[in-house]
């Protein structure tokens, strides 16, 4: 070779190890993600370890301490059956978080698969898929969920299915539009010239490049699902009492809002904080992944 070798100038690029680290480091260094961790971390920590806390069980009634305002003994107070609201809130958070993550996961997986197929192959598959998503997107999501729950019955699994049903079309659309723009990239053509299979193209070239925006959408969907679940439970269509979901807790207290504000308000604040935390999280992920948002 007459050509001289081009060696990498050392100062320009860090080596691979630090690059991987810097990905995580950048995620943790982002102020929004730090904020999200500061909000969600304690809530999750308390929820996971609530059985170790010196709290009465969420269903344990105490007729000696009914409708007590927040105090050192009961940080969030008690409801009209003397149940500890902090304990019930944490149990509710557990259910809410489960619903949130189940919905996000379901929407992510189904949306990823269907959206990829629809965008990649196009044609009849795409038209049928788009017709179906259009139908579902035509209904307000809460209305759709209410309708579904009334058919499927109440409980955890129906609630998760009902909420994801309105999220899945959105994810299919999102994934499809990303696939459409990736499908004609030169690197896909390059792989096609060596007769790479469709599965190879989808799994190696398309999905790795769409997963990041989908994660952002999933964290928003999780926050939304928690709110919708609370709404359904509040309407008496979600998790059945006495199971302590956050929506149930708010409903329990709504008739006593003037006498005992803490029964509804404090679980409500927790919902708010979870929703805000998840939004910060998605915003942070987006900021880190999207180079344009960096100044």
């Amino acid at each position, binding site marked *: *070779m*007459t*050509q*001289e*070798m*081009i*060696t*990498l*100038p050392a*100062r*320009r*690029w860090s080596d*691979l190890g630090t*690059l991987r680290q810097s990905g995580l480091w950048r995620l943790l260094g982002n102020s929004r993600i730090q904020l999200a961790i500061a909000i969600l971390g304690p809530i999750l920590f308390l929820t996971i370890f609530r059985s170790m806390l010196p709290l009465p069980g969420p269903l344990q009634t105490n007729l000696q301490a009914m409708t007590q305002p927040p105090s050192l003994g009961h940080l969030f107070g008690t409801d009209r059956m003397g149940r500890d609201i902090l304990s019930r809130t944490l149990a509710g958070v557990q259910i809410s978080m489960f619903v949130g993550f189940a919905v996000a996961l379901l929407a992510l997986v189904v949306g990823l698969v269907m959206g990829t197929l629809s965008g990649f192959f196009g044609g009849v598959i795409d038209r049928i898929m788009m017709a179906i998503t259009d139908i579902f997107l035509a209904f307000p999501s809460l209305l759709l969920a209410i309708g579904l729950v009334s058919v499927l019955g109440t409980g955890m699994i129906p609630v998760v299915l009902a909420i994801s049903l309105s999220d899945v079309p959105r994810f299919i659309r999102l994934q499809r539009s990303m696939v459409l723009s990736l499908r004609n*990239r*030169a*690197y896909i*053509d*390059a*792989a*096609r*010239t*060596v*007769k*790479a*299979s469709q599965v*190879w193209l989808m799994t*190696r*070239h398309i999905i*790795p*490049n769409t997963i990041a925006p989908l994660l952002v959408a999933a964290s928003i969907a999780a926050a939304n699902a928690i709110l919708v679940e609370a709404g359904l439970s509040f309407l008496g269509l979600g998790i059945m009492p006495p199971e302590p979901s956050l929506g149930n807790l708010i409903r329990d207290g709504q008739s006593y809002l003037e006498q005992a504000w803490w029964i509804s308000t404090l679980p409500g604040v927790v919902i708010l904080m979870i929703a805000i935390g998840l939004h910060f999280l998605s915003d942070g992920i987006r900021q880190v992944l999207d180079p344009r948002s*960096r*100044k």
Partner: protein
Amino acid sequence: MNFLRPIQALNASPTGQTSLLEVRDLHTHFLTDGGTVKAVNGVSFEIERGERIAIVGESGSGKSAMAMSLLRLLAYPGKVVAGQINLNGRDLNRMSERQLNHIRGREVGTIFQDPMSSLDPVMKIADQMIPPIMRHLDMNSEKARAEAIGWLDRVGIPDAGRRIDAYPFEMSGGMRQRVMIAMALSGRPKLMIADEPTTALDVTIQAQIVELLKELTSETGAGMIFITHDLGLVARFAHKVGVMYAGKLVEFGPVKDIFARPCHPYTQSLLDTIPPVDQAERRKLAQIPGFPPDMKLPLVGCAFKDRCAAAHERCFVEAPDLTLRGPGHRAACWKPEGLGEARRKDAELVPPMTHSEEDRVVVEVFNLHKHFTGRSVLPWKVPPTVRAVNGISLNIREGETLGIVGESGCGKSTVARLLLGLDPATSGDIYVDGMAQMVFQDPASSFNPKMMLADIIQEPLVVTGWGNRMERAARTRELLAQVGLDESYMSRYPNQLSGGQRQRIAIARALALKPSVVVADEPTSALDVSVRAQIINLMVDLKRQLRVSFVFISHDLLTVSYISDKIAVMYLGEVVEYGAADEVFRNPAHPYTQALIAAVPVPDPVAEEARMKKPLSGELPSPLDLPSGCAFASRCPRATDHCRAEKPLLQAYSKSREAACHYAN
């Protein structure tokens, strides 16, 4: 920079007036999170009335930032931190936004690279053109409209009275750029700033626009700053040239003097990277090693020292200032002759490849058609059909390079996709002995950003089940070595590479399966001149070493004729001239080839002056309804009724050439 004084005295006009524009010690910084990028680092020059100055340099040299600084049009976070910009004796840098707005458009007009984004897509041309004219020239709307139509007519927009009410999307790129020029000139500016105004256009359109700008500025007596990276264009267009490197002018002077006697090593290297017009024997193109310096880091000594063959001790310690080298000619180098003796050292001869009739034919294309059928408006109407490729026949022998040239829309990229089997042909035969692989135009989208380079190069091997893991890694190393990269690249990601390195990786990937032919679609058009030479040299080397055939698709005729053995000139989906590269380039037979070659700017101001200055008029007709006769008849200076009625077929013109023209012989 007080050494400017005597020079100014040299240049001062006899009437004793000040220069039109006098830039003094301009500094522009971009205050980014990663540090301060010193984009412009003390630039001084002046422009007289009616003078056209070209500013050339690689991307990142600060030429655009400099031009934008003049009118304070810098994008955030750019900021002019120091300097004087005296326009007719008034310092623009000290003006308020409000005062500057009076200058913009009225005294200084601007034309940008991308006519797509410079015009508002939802406003009619009239609505974008008339209000500024009313404001700048104090006219009522009727008069301003007449003025606007007059300008549109001047810049060669047919039927200007009607087209003024068109939207930008109803016009082609060339037409939009004409509208931009009309808008810029309608304020009767004293100075025009044009930032790569023809880069997005075809050579023929570029030639039209350049002629137009030249004519109109000399007519109105406006001065002009012309930013470009195309040295050929500079030779055709400019009175003076400024060469920028790392935010500084490294050489400045009259165009003929700079091309004949460049003094700075960077200017010398830039000129040597262009394939020469006279190609009796092919020499390797000079290439500039290394990268431009990181403008965030402090610089000690000359900015070019790391890439300069003539650098000596002093260059590492002290930065040279511009010194006088001739009348009005200044250069910033410690050596009086720049590279001097070292300049021609690299230019080793490229031994010509021997081709014989016995070499096996690796690609044979016979009567190839590709038609794209749209959807018809009404079900009983015949759907519109675009005949992108309309019956072409080609063949390529082992080790041969076929160049395909033509304006955009002539079907050359479609031919590439058909050769690679990415799209099915409508009719005709393609025979490829072995495998066809591709190198793409846009180095940015050629690679999956989530894959390591080793995986990218290996992908063809993995997909076809070639060898085991160890063998594949060994092959990857071998390929990297062939394209002149070292092993450390294997674990990098595409976003860590420069444009030239990406194109090397693209070539490595294309070579992985030892293809018989590599199709390269505009592989160098997104690259800087210095890097372009590296890639062309690499392809010439590979062609000799591996005896792999190339199909080189480009609109850059100089490059195509340098690298190719045969050239096929395409027009509207057909080959109009086909034959040995040197012959086609030196003695074109078809009027279209002649026009294309005439449109290519040659980096030699003396030769440029002597050349035919009549650019091909008009634009490519719509491929939706092709004329029944010769497709080129609508733009051909020699067209007759016979041409319009009867289609000329590709016929033998000489022993090694064919042309499709009734009057070629």
